[in-house]
Each structure stands twice: as C-alpha cells, then as structure tokens.
C-alpha cells in the first residue's frame, strides 16, 4: 500500500491562550500568523503559516521552522497589558503530514472521531484520541492531512499511522 505517505514535519508552533474574542488578541495573532483568527474548530491557513482554533481560550499558531521563538516574543510585545499567554511550543509537539487518497480511513481506524466528509469538513480541526494518546488533526484538502501530537509520543503515533497504512483501506468512505 504505497499510496499513503506519512512524513514528520517540524514547523514552528506558538501556543496562544487568552480571550479569543478580544480584538487586541485577534489582531495580534493575525499579524503574527498572516492569517485571520479562525472561527470555532477551524484552521485558518495561509501557506506555511496559520492559526488553529484549539478551545474557546486557546489557539495554536503555525509558522515556518525556527520562527516560533521570535513570534512568541512579538505576540507578547503586542499584547502587553492584555491577559494572555504566548509560548513557543515547537519542541513540545510533533507534526505529521499524511498524504494519499484514503487517509480518512487511516485516521478513522485509530480514533473515535467521525471522519466522514460531512462530519469532518476540510479545514476543521478535530482534537481527539489516537489509540491511547491525545492528538489533533485536520484535513487540508482531500488527500492531505496534518496531525499534531505531543513529541514524547511521536514515535508511538508514527508507528500507529504506518501500521494503519500497512493494513490497507477498509472501504468506509468508498
């Protein structure tokens, strides 16, 4: 089953916590990420950068590799006096890119989340469980998904994904 590829990526990631509905926070995040603040559960992407909605008070900013520390500092400067937390989390998370035609099934076999295209539209971030560990994934375009997990379980997650690919499709969304 060579149609699906799993690749480890190392983007920069900045955690931003605070009141996501506040104008100051939204403007600062957009300026740093180069993309608008996403609506609930959405990913707002612009090329290599973007913002993921993680919870009502948490967003994850994606940046090119090596840019996160500087971006976290820039965010804190812009948000001086506004209650927030901006933290470079690049080394605390692992990111995988999954490409191929039946990647929804690769994930569906590992997670309780409903992967049906109607239940999980493109660019909707689903935080869930992947076998025994927490993970978040979103499908950027049919045939390309990205997945984030804790770095401490990255080897485990990579093994899960590869095994799920090896076992082949089951025809769930055929």
């Amino acid at each position, binding site marked *: 089953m060579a149609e699906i590829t799993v690749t480890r990526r190392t983007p920069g990631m900045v955690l931003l916590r605070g009141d996501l509905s506040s104008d100051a926070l939204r403007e600062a995040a957009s300026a740093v990420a180069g993309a608008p603040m996403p609506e609930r559960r959405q990913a707002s992407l612009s090329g290599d950068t973007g913002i993921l909605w993680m*919870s009502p008070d948490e967003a994850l900013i994606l940046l090119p590799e090596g840019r996160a520390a500087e971006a976290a500092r820039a965010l804190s400067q812009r948000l001086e006096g506004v209650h927030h937390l901006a933290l470079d989390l690049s080394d605390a998370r692992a990111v995988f890119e999954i490409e191929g035609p039946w990647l929804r099934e690769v994930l569906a076999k590992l997670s*309780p989340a409903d992967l049906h295209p109607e239940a999980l539209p493109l660019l909707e971030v689903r935080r869930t469980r992947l076998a025994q560990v927490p993970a978040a994934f979103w499908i950027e375009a049919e045939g390309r998904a990205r997945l984030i997990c804790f770095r401490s379980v990255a080897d485990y997650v990579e093994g899960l994904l590869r095994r799920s690919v090896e076992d082949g499709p089951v025809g769930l969304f055929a």
Partner: protein
Amino acid sequence: MLILTCPYCGVAADETELSPGGEAHLHRAGPGSEDASVEAYLYHRSNPKGVHFERWRHAYGCGKWFHSARDTATNDVFGTYPAQVTETPQNILEAIAQRRPGWERPQ
C-alpha cells in the same frame, strides 16, 4: 457507547474522549457547616436508575468541564450544558419532561 456534545467546542465526543466527573450540582458545605452536611457533601451521592445529572470533562478535546443529563439505564442523552450554572437550564428540564413524563427530581 455514550456520545456527548461538548457545549464549548461543539464536538460530538465519544465516551473515551471524556473524563467523568461524578454527580453535578452538588452544594458545597463550607466552613462552619454541620458535620452531617460536610459528610453529605463529601460522600453522599445519588445513584439513580434513570435520569441523572453529571459532570464531564472533554479531556481529549478542548479540556473544558461541562454538565450532561442522561438516563443511566438507557444512555439516552437529554442534553449537555456549560458548567457555569448552579441549576439545570430550563430547556434540559423540558427535554426530560417530554421524554420521561412524570419524572421528578429527587429531593
């Protein structure tokens, strides 16, 4: 299998994505309370067969605590609602009244 919709992120979360938090709407017995009411607050829990109000945390998701009303015998879910309330919202009580006519909250 139990599926609860998190009122904060709107995800229909599977039971295995949630952490149970026990009975909802407990009244804390604070300083100066009678021993009996502290004991009740700490240990006395209802264990109904039927309508029950619980706390859950969306542990594998947005991480927020919320409340749910469900039937413990059938896992029929009447609704979920945010944790920032001390009483069950009216729309949840109406959903229960509709599907369990005659149900009354135990004292």
